[in-house]
């Protein structure tokens, strides 16, 4: 009885966290889909978003929800700067060049952050009460994070399907030369998509702060990079919607298996959770090699 209650509670928690994973992966998928660039430094941008939320809260008492637009604007600006300074020159270069470049950018951001902020764990606590729902106890902040993730994903969906620029981005994803013969300025689509991808990623860092019990640190990124890669592949690389759905499932799975693995004597559930998550990925890819929502 206790176990099932704990499982329900953890699954609920996993669903909330999963939605944040989803938003944290959409930017990676978007950038890959449009530019065919794998952003190896992905996690560093999540870290920047987390620190945005931290400093806004500690210095100016701005609650994380209000830091979301600030992080988005910061991320968009950063995305444009990185695009025009680095990525633009590498678009037609071999994959290894862009891998190394994004890897270097990630390390650069981390080290500058360490220089400025130090490498200690920091945190803040934003308490607006807790929801008690049967076996489930959830702080309202996490529910808000879920709500924000769902709204952001929804807005993005509408923007991609209903606006001219969003449709043009989808067109470039589907066929680059096809988009060119329609008169779409593909270079502009690259810069806008890269900026939006980075903007979303920095933004997701704000949401992540509502789920980290031990606080944040300038080296928190790589862990999220790894998870984002798994989620992106699971969702079908290049599909932001697939990434969102996959993030959700990944959160459920990670937290569900955590509870169940904890029952096995002698097992350290945290370490094994990641193993199980990768097995889950393998099984999905065996059944559908293009990922959940991936194209042909």
């Amino acid at each position, binding site marked *: 009885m206790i176990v099932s209650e704990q499982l329900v509670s953890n699954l609920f928690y996993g669903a909330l966290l999963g939605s944040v994973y989803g938003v944290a992966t959409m930017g990676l998928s978007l950038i890959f889909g449009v530019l065919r660039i794998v952003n190896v430094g992905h996690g560093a941008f999540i870290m920047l978003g987390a620190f945005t939320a931290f400093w806004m809260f500690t210095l100016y008492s701005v609650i994380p929800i209000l830091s979301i637009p600030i992080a988005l604007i910061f991320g968009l600006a950063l995305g444009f700067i990185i695009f025009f300074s680095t990525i633009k020159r590498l678009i037609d270069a071999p994959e290894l060049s862009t891998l190394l470049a994004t890897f270097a950018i990630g390390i650069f951001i981390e080290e500058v952050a360490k220089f400025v902020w130090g490498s200690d764990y920091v945190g803040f606590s934003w308490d607006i009460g807790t929801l008690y729902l049967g076996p489930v106890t959830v702080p309202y902040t996490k529910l808000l994070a879920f709500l924000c993730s769902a709204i952001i994903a929804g807005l993005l969906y509408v923007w991609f399907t209903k606006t*001219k620029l969003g*449709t*043009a981005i*989808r*067109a470039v994803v*589907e*066929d680059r*030369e*096809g*988009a*060119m*013969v*329609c*008169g*779409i*300025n*593909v*270079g502009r689509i690259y810069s806008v998509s890269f900026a939006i991808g980075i903007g979303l990623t920095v933004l997701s860092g704000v949401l992540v702060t509502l789920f980290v019990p031990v606080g944040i640190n300038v080296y928190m990124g790589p862990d999220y990079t790894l998870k984002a890669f798994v989620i992106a592949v699971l969702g079908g690389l290049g599909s932001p919607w697939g990434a969102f759905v996959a993030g959700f499932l990944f959160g459920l799975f990670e937290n569900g298996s955590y509870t169940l693995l904890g029952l096995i004597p002698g097992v350290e559930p945290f370490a094994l959770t990641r193993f199980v998550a990768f097995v889950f990925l393998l099984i999905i890819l065996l059944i559908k090699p293009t990922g959940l929502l991936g*194209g*042909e």
Partner: protein
Amino acid sequence: MLFVRDLESGYGEMQVLWGINLEVNEKTVTTILGPNGSGKTTTLRSIFGLNRPWRGVVEFDRIDVTYMPPHAKVEIGITLVLEGRHLFPSMSVEENLRLGAYTRRAEEKMDDSIDLVYSLFPRLKERREQKAGTLSGGEQQMLAIGRALMTAPKLILMDEPSQGLAPKLVAEVFETVERLREEGLTILLVEQNVYASLEISDYAYVLGDGKVVLEGTVDEIRDSEEVKKAYVGI
């Protein structure tokens, strides 16, 4: 309308075009013929800007457009129907067409253009909600041509529009090209289908090894020994 002088281009280190000279007059159909690997596709891609010209000049309506990027060329009235169609497969027929009218100039004419496309290809109208990727090969080719028309072009470059189609559909494609000329468009066509394309052309160029080896009116080309020699058995 279109002048190409001493155009040289290629891929990476490999030069494919060794000085192409050609001219396309307004409201005509001009065909580029030639064996595989003679540089037909590269010529169209270099004129449109998908391949960067190495040397030479491309002029459109007396403006130098040699290094103008593709999207700007669409804006001034040039488009390309790519070999292999390059549609947006998961989008509907209508979404594909609307994307054709992406430039501001084309967007203003969108409603008229859609009417024109649907009157040319009633089958596209029937299938306008269907995803482009689920259309038959012939319908996809119609959609590729339709999408090009949506850009409100003056000059359409067409790269092997009849490729991979059944004979009946090939005839339909050539009829379409003729109708487009009647609508006042100018067409530069690359084709493997020598005799069918000469049927509907006004002027033709024959390429060999990245150079123009022969040019002339359709009758001159048809009767030339070189073409007969080159295409015997095709």
